């Protein structure tokens, strides 16, 4: 292969290098660590997929603030309501993201926040209902990398 480099190729390689400097990442949690964190919340109870809606953009242009909304199908009455909602990630440095406690006075089981995602990964939301059952939903998010970062 000839080693001659044209100016344009150099420019391409050089700008690619701008992206490469952000590829260094801290040690991450693993899907197993996430399972452990979920276990700490649900114990030996069975977690069933369904009733939970997890809204996250499938593609995020920055992992520093990704909007997240979790809602759960529930009448939210004293007899039948959502007690808690927990969010976990599989590749952040630690799997726990947020745990909220609510009850019938919420009127509806719906919370929003903004989260950090260190990498492209799966996010899991688990709802704990007043009858002791656990329900879940998951979402995959692709996090894109910014090109020109300042020195930090």
């Amino acid at each position, binding site marked *: *292969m*000839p*080693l001659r*480099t044209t*100016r*344009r*190729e150099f*420019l*391409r*390689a*050089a*700008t*690619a290098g*701008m*992206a490469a400097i*952000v590829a260094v990442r801290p040690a991450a949690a693993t899907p197993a660590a996430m399972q452990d964190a979920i276990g700490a919340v649900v114990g030996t109870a069975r977690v069933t997929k369904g009733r939970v809606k997890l809204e996250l*953009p499938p*593609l*995020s*242009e*920055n992992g*520093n*603030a*990704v*909007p997240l909304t979790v809602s759960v199908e529930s009448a939210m009455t004293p007899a039948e309501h959502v007690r808690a909602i927990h969010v976990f990630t599989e590749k952040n440095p630690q799997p726990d993201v947020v745990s909220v406690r609510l009850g019938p006075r919420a009127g509806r089981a719906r919370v929003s926040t*903004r989260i950090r995602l260190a990498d492209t990964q799966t996010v899991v939301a688990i709802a704990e209902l007043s009858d002791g059952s656990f329900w879940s939903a998951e979402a995959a998010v692709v996090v*894109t*990398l*910014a*090109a*020109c*970062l*300042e*020195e930090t």
Partner: protein
Amino acid sequence: MLRLAAALGALGLAVSALAAEIPSAERRSGYDFMSRETRAMQDDDTANPAMLWVLEGGALWNRKTGAAGRACADCHGDARASMKGVAARHPAFDAGRGRPVSLEQRINACRVERQQAPALAYESRELLALTAFVARQSRGLPIDVAVDARTQPFLDAGRALWERRQGQLNLACRQCHDENWGHRLAGSVIPQAHPTGYPLYRLEWQALGSLQRRFRNCLIGVRSEPYEYGDPALVDLELYLKWRARGMLMDAPAVRP
């Protein structure tokens, strides 16, 4: 090397022979390149984190400070009226200095000369807060910097800086933002670099920052030695970019990725 270049071709910058200003009808604010989610964050004042700085700026506006014991409001009154359009007109010519000054420099001049208080450091929380509060009063107004015989040389200097290749990557601002806007650099869309929303909340910074902070990011990105905050060269560049975005509507304090 060739294979690397081919594999990364999707990121490649096409380098055309000559810079051409973006036609008026094709100009796009950075807002137009953002995801739906990031736009929503900017559009709702109760969700836009930059509003935390505006709130703080409003408190500083009314607080007496300095040896003169005077608040901004003591001279300027209600900022909604007195500061309307001010950010859209900066950088503006300052007769005392004989050159254009940025909005931050104007605020600090007021502090030092009228309030007899020490100047606030660039990128300090207080200066960003006051700047954001003042810039908020221009939201929705067209950018309108004055170009006349006095400011023309500084505008020309700003344009020259924009067009000059620099840094180890030997890139000029225009190569990305005039000639390759809309293409991708790594995962990000290259915007046209219109300063409609500064100071703004960048998700990358996780905080509010000035236009000069953004300039310094770009300069570091092309591996050049960045100018210091407040350097006349950066103010000239601000002036050129505001002129280049003339007529576009201010959306400060904006949110950008």
